[in-house]
């Protein structure tokens, strides 16, 4: 009886801890990445963005995604990789208009992925 109560409490604490950690961790990572994408977007609008700027954002994302792999489906991470590479390619060739549309996709993804982990009716079902 004591053992059952104890194990139930321990698993409840572990699950609660994992849930809180995931929420905070994913939100923080995506907040930081969204800020980097936003800064790049500003530069692209001003047509001052360079290949080095795009590479810096890519490097930043490479660092972030190493930890995110533990909690996000790898498909979601691959999706960001794809759009970031597209945007970097456009910046490198000076196609700022196209780069803006790719960055717009990235900004949306940065909002959608953390939101898809929230406890809402739509997400549960």
């Amino acid at each position: 009886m004591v053992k059952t109560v104890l194990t139930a409490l321990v698993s409840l604490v572990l699950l609660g801890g994992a849930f809180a950690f995931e929420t905070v961790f994913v939100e923080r990572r995506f907040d930081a990445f969204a800020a980097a994408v936003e800064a790049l977007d500003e530069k692209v609008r001003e047509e001052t963005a360079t290949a080095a700027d795009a590479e810096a954002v890519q490097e930043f994302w490479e660092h972030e995604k190493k930890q995110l792999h533990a909690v996000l489906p790898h498909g979601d991470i691959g999706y960001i990789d794809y759009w970031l590479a597209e945007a970097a390619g456009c910046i490198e060739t000076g196609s700022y208009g196209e780069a803006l549309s790719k960055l717009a996709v990235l900004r949306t993804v940065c909002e959608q992925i953390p939101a898809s982990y929230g406890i809402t009716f739509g997400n549960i079902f």
Partner: protein
Amino acid sequence: MGLIFLRTAIVFVALLIVMRLMGKRQIGEMQPFELVITLLIAELACIPMADTSIPLLYGLVSVLTIFLLHQLLLLADLKCKPFKAALGGKPSVVINKNGIDIPQLRKNSLDVSDLIESMRGAGYFSLDEVAYALYEANGKFSAMPREDGPREARGSLPVLIVGDGKYEEKNLALTKTGRPFFDAVLKQQNIRSLRKVYVLTLDGTGKVYLQCRGEKFRTFRVALPEGCAW
């Protein structure tokens, strides 16, 4: 992970309700919630293991959720009697002193042939050999023999002739009897319609076990036609 917790809990509860509604037929030796856990846990552990695009944590959280639910249900099972009955079900008495309890049998999605099969498994070959028979909450079959039970030698296996108002054609052929023979037997017993008969069995000594819907069972002997043996 909160989502996975909730989704796992929802699937668990939904499966548990379905298992309870399916009756004892689907359960064997396990409580419904134990069976649900057995069904879920292998799959939950297997998917993240085989699909490398899903973080392993998803599987671990699901398994831990199942463990937590199991422990909570175990506590409720020990501490709360009404909850225990709602969760695991109650034993169903399917044979009493009046014979087969037809509503109880139906409630558990069983028919008379399932009952006869369970009785054979418990070592009873004739329906009148037991005073009480029940399906336990875990689906196990238990029977209490009658004090004044039939002691005669078993000539051959009693076979089901009429089950739920319908003739069992295979058994009619096996016993080398026919519908006219049993129509006459039923007429002799003042039974006008075959649909009224819930169960009629016949053994090699000519002993008939007959139970009509809403009535107590009766046993009697008939003279078997010549060449009727199995």
